[in-house]
């Protein structure tokens, strides 16, 4: 509609792999429609055009890992009417949150010849640990259909329809026979939020938790089942300590299987 000001969309990146913002560009068939519905005001991966804030919607990828990030996310929050985190890093700290369980200094020394050049925080955490977040879209990576749903919802002033039930429901919908029951495969599906479409079990492997904990997960019971399937304490700890290691429910469960000496 001519004369009607389009909502301004901004896409921001912190510590991450770029995969979630790429998911926006991966909306190949819908990308031009999205760009017609909103003004892409800041999206460095796609454009050198920078339109000043405030922004109607900010999509934030990546976790907060540096003193610079801490300041930047506060500025972004101030400039954004709605702030949506996209992906496991922005929501729970991502795979790089594995540093949270150890001393980051050891990590720096292992990787860099000049540790003194490296400026980093002891932890990698999600955006909501620093500023209020309006909606958290899960996934490592996010599901691009869910991203379109979230954009559509906020553009139309409604709540996004993103299910919070477990991955198991998706296997049932897809008609995949349960890899845990039928084959005894370790599968985190019962405690993981839906979103990928039941991908791993459909490919003959157990879920490893890309979408993080579902609403009210019974991780203790999950751990007991994994133990029954032959996983030792170390295996169980690692199962909960991956792409969403710092999500409270998974962090707590992995810590319950820490070595006594630890």
């Amino acid at each position, binding site marked *: 509609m001519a004369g009607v000001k389009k909502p301004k969309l901004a896409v921001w990146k912190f510590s991450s792999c*770029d995969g979630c913002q790429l998911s926006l560009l*991966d909306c190949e068939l819908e990308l031009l429609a999205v760009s017609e519905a909103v003004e892409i005001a800041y999206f460095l991966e796609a454009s050198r*055009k920078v339109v000043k804030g405030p922004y109607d919607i900010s999509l934030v990828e990546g976790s907060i890992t540096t003193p610079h990030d801490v300041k930047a996310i506060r500025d972004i929050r101030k400039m954004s009417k709605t702030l949506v985190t996209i992906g496991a890093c922005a929501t729970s700290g991502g795979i790089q949150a594995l540093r949270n369980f150890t001393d980051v200094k050891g*990590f720096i020394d292992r990787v860099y010849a*000049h540790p003194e050049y490296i400026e980093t925080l002891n932890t*990698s955490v999600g955006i909501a640990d620093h500023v209020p977040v309006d909606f958290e879209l899960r996934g490592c990576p996010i599901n691009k259909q869910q991203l379109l749903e979230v954009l559509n919802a906020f553009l139309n002033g409604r709540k996004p329809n993103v299910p919070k039930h477990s991955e198991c429901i998706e296997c049932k919908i897809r008609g995949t026979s349960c890899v845990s029951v039928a084959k005894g495969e370790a599968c985190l599906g019962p405690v993981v939020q839906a979103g990928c479409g039941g991908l791993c079990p459909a490919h003959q492997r157990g879920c490893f938790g890309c979408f993080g904990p579902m609403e009210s997960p019974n991780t203790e019971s999950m751990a007991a089942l994994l133990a029954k399937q032959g996983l030792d304490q170390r295996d169980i700890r690692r199962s909960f300590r991956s792409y969403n290691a710092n999500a409270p429910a998974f962090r707590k469960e992995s810590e319950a299987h820490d070595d006594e000496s630890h």
Partner: protein
Amino acid sequence: MTTRVIKVDALARVEGEGSLLVRIKDGVIKDLEFGIFEPPRFFEAFLVGRDYSEVPDITARICGICPIAYEMGSIQAMEDIFGITVPKPIRDLRRLIYCGEWIESHGLHVYLLHAPDFLGLPDALELAKSDKALVEKALRLKKIGNDILEVVGGRAVHPINLKVGGFFSTPRKAKIKALAEDLKWAVETSLATVKLVGGFDFPVLEQDYHFVALRHPDEYAIHEGRVVSNRGLDIPVSQFLDHFDEEHVRHSNALHGIIKDGSGPYKVGPLARYALNYDKLSPLAKQAAKEAGLGPVVRNPFQSIVVRAIELVQACEDALRIVESYEEPDAASVPFEVKAGRDRGSARALLPYL
């Protein structure tokens, strides 16, 4: 005396985060700093203590745009240690998914990241306002790459179907064959891409590069071969660390690669791969290069967009060939025994760039 400073705090249309600082005095560059301020994530450190079977999915997370390169890098390193050689049908599927990643990533790079520079536009979406059909074609081409990733790997970003020894499940024949029609279109579109970007205006600049790339006797190398250079280096991957080093500089979180013999930095990427593997290009890709006015070696960095488009032709053709001859393998993966070991070719993590 005039001094000019070019300072870009955050480079646009690149994968990752970078800054650029150039100081020019009387027309001569005095300082040039390309800073990668992408925060450290410490993959090398947190992989310690993980199970071998978890590693490919973890290394995928290094990059969402080229996860296959990192998944395959770690898979091949572990297969070297375990003494695994995968049979041809599995090797073909790996080549196919890699071609899918090239089609997706090269398509993204050529049209969405690089081309706007030559057209004086801020982005490809702006281009869609004047030539919507062209951008739709570009996005369809990119999507065909992603379709391959989804059919073979389960999803486009961080595919879940790859593992040490092969795949978790075998892609069904009908699903693979269904890619053929789109890939025929993709071959034609990639040729049109070479023609389009070959017609851009390129500043004249010839650089005396030390090119380093993989080279394979039977194919345009993507994931296997020896490490070769245009100055006589020719080594197996396992000797990589004997010849190459990485330096940590203050202004960048990305380590600087150098050759240990004192010759310093080296050039990887499309220009290097092309120069060292020109004879392995398909006749069609060679013809496209010739028509775009390229010789067997391109030293003008601005023309990397044309060379990348030629690699796109190669990837589309290779993918189509594999799709057309595809038969489901008897098993999705080969059995193996897990062994402790040290793969000096663990520098394979670097090979995606070669």
